[in-house]
């Protein structure tokens, strides 16, 4: 897919909580947002922050082509994201996008039921993924985990797209949703045979737990049955510096260009 380097203008910066915020962006020159595949990401240049030298990779949370807006769901983690959190409407942001491969969407099999599992800010790429899957006629459910309900972002948005199941470590619940105490792998919805494909994005341990759970399942024999979106520190985001490698069964692969999405069968987990 063709990549672009574009100045975006901040339409709004919505603070969801102390640590989470959503940047709604539109190209500063009024041009159209380029087509993005679900699960792809963007590299943001963080200006005005002396301690940030490299761009920061952020998943594409949602592309609203009608409003010509790209949404990014971002968690403050350090210098770069703290700076981004200060952006105000009309500020500009230089972005390279769309990057990486994205989740596989089985375009030939329209009635598949996908479970999209997210933890923490890892829910970010799942919203656009849900929308795109629905466009191809798939059924979509979300399983979102967090320490407490308050930490699970964008639940209302996810409910617009499909069923939402929740696990919380503290047992807190959200009205009207199937909330269970524990980790995502412990939710009763996550059972062999219930879903045709699984897509996961979240903390490494969570993704590994899901991978362990599903790898004995029969469906797991299908290609792309379970895909995970990995993170890694990145310098280029373009597959040229080889800094972001994951050690796969096929040797070192770049998370930025061979991933961030990998089939768990290709990983050494």
């Amino acid at each position, binding site marked *: 897919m063709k990549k672009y*380097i574009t100045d975006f203008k901040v339409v709004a910066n919505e603070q969801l909580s102390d640590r989470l915020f959503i940047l709604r962006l539109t190209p500063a020159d009024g041009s159209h947002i380029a087509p993005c595949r679900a699960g792809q990401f963007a590299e943001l240049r963080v200006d005005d922050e002396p301690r940030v030298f490299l761009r920061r990779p952020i998943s594409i949370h949602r592309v609203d082509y009608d409003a010509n807006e790209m949404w990014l769901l971002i968690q403050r983690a350090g210098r770069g994201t703290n700076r981004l959190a200060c952006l105000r409407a009309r500020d500009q942001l230089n972005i390279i996008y769309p990057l990486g491969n994205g989740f596989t969407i089985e375009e030939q099999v329209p009635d598949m039921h996908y479970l999209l599992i997210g933890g923490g800010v890892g829910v970010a790429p799942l919203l656009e993924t849900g929308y795109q899957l629905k466009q191809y006629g798939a059924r979509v459910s979300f399983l979102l985990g967090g320490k407490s309900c308050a930490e699970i972002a964008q639940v209302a948005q996810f409910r617009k797209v499909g069923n939402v199941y929740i696990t919380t470590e503290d047992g807190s619940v959200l009205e009207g949703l199937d909330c269970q105490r524990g980790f995502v792998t412990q939710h009763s919805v996550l059972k062999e045979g219930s879903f045709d494909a699984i897509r996961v994005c979240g903390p490494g341990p969570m993704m590994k737990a899901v991978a362990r759970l599903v790898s004995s399942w029969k469906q797991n024999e299908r290609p792309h049955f379970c895909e995970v979106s990995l993170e890694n520190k990145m310098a280029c985001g373009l597959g040229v510096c080889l800094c972001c490698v994951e050690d796969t069964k096929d040797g070192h692969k770049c998370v930025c260009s061979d991933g961030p999405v990998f089939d768990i069968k290709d990983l050494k987990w």
Partner: protein
Amino acid sequence: MANLTINIAGLTLKNPVLTASGTFGYGTEFSDFIDLERLGGFIVKGTTLHPRQGNPYPRLAETPSGMINAVGLQNKGVAYYIEHIHPQLASLKTNVIVNLSGSCIEDYVEGARMLNEVETIPAIELNISCPNVKAGGMGFGTKPEMAAEVVREVRNVYRKPLIVKLTPNVTNIAEIAKAVEDAGADSVSLINTVLAMAVDAERQRPILSTVTGGLSGAAVKPIALRCVWQVYNAVKIPIVGLGGIMNATDAIEFMLCGASAIEVGTANFIDPTVTMKIIDGIDEYLDRHGCQNVSEIVGALKV
């Protein structure tokens, strides 16, 4: 519109702007952003005779105005490059230069012999300065005799322009440059990365899997400029300058210090279009300073 053409080591560059090995992949990764054929040339990823998996992860640390990498020459080997990668680049109307590394002299020589046979590879950059490999690499670049020996042996089998890439991690870089010049190098490029380290204080661990790695980016520019200046005052062969070049002004500073051409490395990560801006900026500078030829500013520093 000044004349930007420059000759180094028998190689004609349409302008002095090259890209640095390991920071530009095989060029094609940038074709969405820039017109590769506008470049004076580009230097592909570090290549070794045998394939290498490189170092374990993590390979990257961000530092003030720079970054440290510990990639360790991950590549598929010279034969694979010649057979599968180079054919896609051969028809590009620019210089596609191969960066050749090795862990022993025999590997360098064999790699160079193979590359010598490929007509569409106009030159090689001999990397005797990689700080990220256990055997060889920078080892060859830190002792004048060793550096001279590998250059001499490669020179025997390699008939085209031979650029030797030097490390700044030495007491006296001019001495190394002189040694490789005497051994038959047509040009020297400098600097490779500066040996460095990063620590995660909370976890009390090194950030890189290899503990130390190579520092690049804006932070190293003052060191690189000094190296180019020292080498310019010691050798007669043309110099390719690099290290922390982020914009046209930086590039011009290197040329004033004696570089006939420059390479852009880490800056490509931050702005993939930066090379085009640098070419335009050099052009504009030459006009403003009333220069007809870019060569007029090479070594023009008034001291």
